[in-house]
């Protein structure tokens, strides 16, 4: 009967989004009068999940699951959910979780709602609030299946620490044939990703060319931020598609989003609107981004950014 949560890890370490999902699952479990069971795959720090409200961890250790595979991982979580008799399952909005969630929904015959931003407003009927129309609206969505699957929007609920510890149990599910095998992975090492970042620094056409991206990267480094870009920048090939944020790119739901030389097309603003605080730096005071931002500087990025970077460096050194 417990609330099941899939706690994603990378290189053996649980991701922040996993801890957020446990915090969220705990809030639901408290209302349902039940407990939280987490399922972790090849994580080395599964015992820490108790700090966020998990009572039990089904700990999977299996070399056959070393690289992520949506079908195999979905089958593992499905087996855990069935063993626990879970009526609610929670996972994050990472690329991998969103990949496996629909497969899990089919396996569990569960109604699946993605991009959920709040605790259910009601348990019977079961209603959750999710974003729709790329953050231009919210939809209060009722799930009527026996088992409910919730994809929690990253950075929407926050981490809530909890007193208690989790019992960690070995869990040895059947590993199914995958059908898809990884040939190679091309991923920057030690770089914060847009999905996991607390701060994102994003550049637009105002930067005039890819050779000027050092400005963005230096500022991002000082802030421990991920770098991103607008659609024209990726269409021009200045930066990779993976950095394109907006309606047809990646969504950004970060604490601080800094837009440099981005005018703020409606599609871009939709994609980043779930970010909590937005700062715009642009030479054009009429740029639409100023209407969407919390803080703005009308100024030339080539003058403002180096100063901002130096001053933030000093600030960070002082407040470290």
């Amino acid at each position, binding site marked *: 009967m417990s609330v099941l949560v899939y706690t994603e890890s990378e290189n053996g370490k649980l991701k922040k989004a996993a801890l957020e999902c446990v915090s969220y699952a705990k809030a639901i479990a408290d209302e349902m009068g039940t407990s939280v069971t987490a399922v972790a795959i090849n994580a080395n720090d599964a015992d820490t999940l108790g700090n966020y409200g998990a009572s039990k961890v089904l700990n999977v250790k299996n070399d056959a699951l070393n690289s992520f595979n*949506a*079908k195999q991982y979905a089958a593992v979580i499905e087996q855990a959910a069935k063993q626990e008799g879970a009526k609610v399952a929670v996972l994050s909005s990472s690329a*991998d979780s*969103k990949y496996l*969630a*629909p*497969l899990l*929904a*089919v396996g569990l015959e569960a*109604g*699946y*709602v993605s991009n959920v931003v709040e605790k259910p407003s009601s348990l019977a009927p079961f*209603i959750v609030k999710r974003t*729709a*129309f*790329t*953050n*231009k*609206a*919210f*939809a*209060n*969505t*009722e*799930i*009527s299946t026996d088992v409910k699957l919730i994809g929690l929007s990253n950075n929407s609920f926050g981490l809530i620490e909890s007193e208690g510890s989790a019992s960690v149990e070995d869990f040895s599910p059947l590993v199914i044939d995958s*059908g*898809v*095998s*990884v*040939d*190679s*992975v*091309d*991923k920057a090492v030690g770089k914060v990703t*847009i*999905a*996991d970042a607390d701060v994102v620094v994003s550049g637009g056409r105002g930067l005039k060319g890819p050779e000027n991206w050092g400005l963005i990267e230096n500022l991002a480094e000082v802030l421990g931020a991920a770098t991103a870009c607008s659609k024209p920048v990726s*269409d021009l090939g200045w930066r990779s*598609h*993976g950095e394109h944020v907006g*309606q*047809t*790119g990646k969504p950004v739901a970060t*604490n601080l989003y800094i837009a440099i030389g981005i005018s703020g097309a*409606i*599609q871009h603003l939709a994609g980043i*609107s779930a970010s*909590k*605080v937005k700062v715009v730096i642009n030479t054009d005071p009429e740029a639409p981004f*100023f209407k969407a*931002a*919390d*803080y*703005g*500087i009308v100024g*030339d990025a080539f003058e*403002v950014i180096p100063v*901002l970077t130096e*001053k933030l460096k000093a600030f960070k050194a002082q407040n470290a």
Partner: protein
Amino acid sequence: MKILVCISHVPDTTSKINFTDGDTKFDTNGVQYVINPNDEFGLTRAMWFKEKQGASVDVVNVGGIETEPTLRKALAIGADAAIRVDAEAKDGFAVAKELAKVVIDGGYDLVIAGRESIDYNGGMVPGMLSGLTGANFVTNCISLEIDGNNAKAIREIDGGKETVNTSLPLVIGGQKGLVEESDLRIPNMRGIMMARKKPLNIVEPAGANADTIANSFEKPAPKGAVKLVDADNIDELINLLHNEAKVI
């Protein structure tokens, strides 16, 4: 190779989003509908398979008669035939169940859908379609090559990309990268004329129930005005971000 491209009929990206009937229904008044951008990248890639590898390409949509212009546009771009499942697209799972029947009945080898629609952003139809039909599945797909029964795909992951090997039958959740923006085709007059003569088959729905229903909609609270900081006073910005916004 038989390819099916799933086409979602969505409001144009510049549409104003409003609701009617006590915020229970999307207000379609004045809204322009387009092929979901993520689907259009997939459709354009499918045209390449048609032209270079002799594939046949059908398009499918679950929706009412008002979605037919969007299917006709897909035919004008070059698809061979269209299928409209005559049912309201109520939720992702129900749509996937309707599409699964079309995929199985039609014996398709490759199904390309967008990784998500830009209206409800559920991101679940391609994955559920794979789960329901047993086909292999790659989403966030930015490159796809087919050689006989084998497929090589690249998918975007958080912070990078991953190259995978798989085989047909296959379901793809596509996005920009499958083809570039500049590869997208605007239907020409000849295409539009030919599209009128191509088959658009209406099929009865399997009758899947919707399990997740949006009861009501809300718009985000209006935002306060931007606080402008002078370009010569960067310290003030840092102060505001630290003490007021508390984000650094």
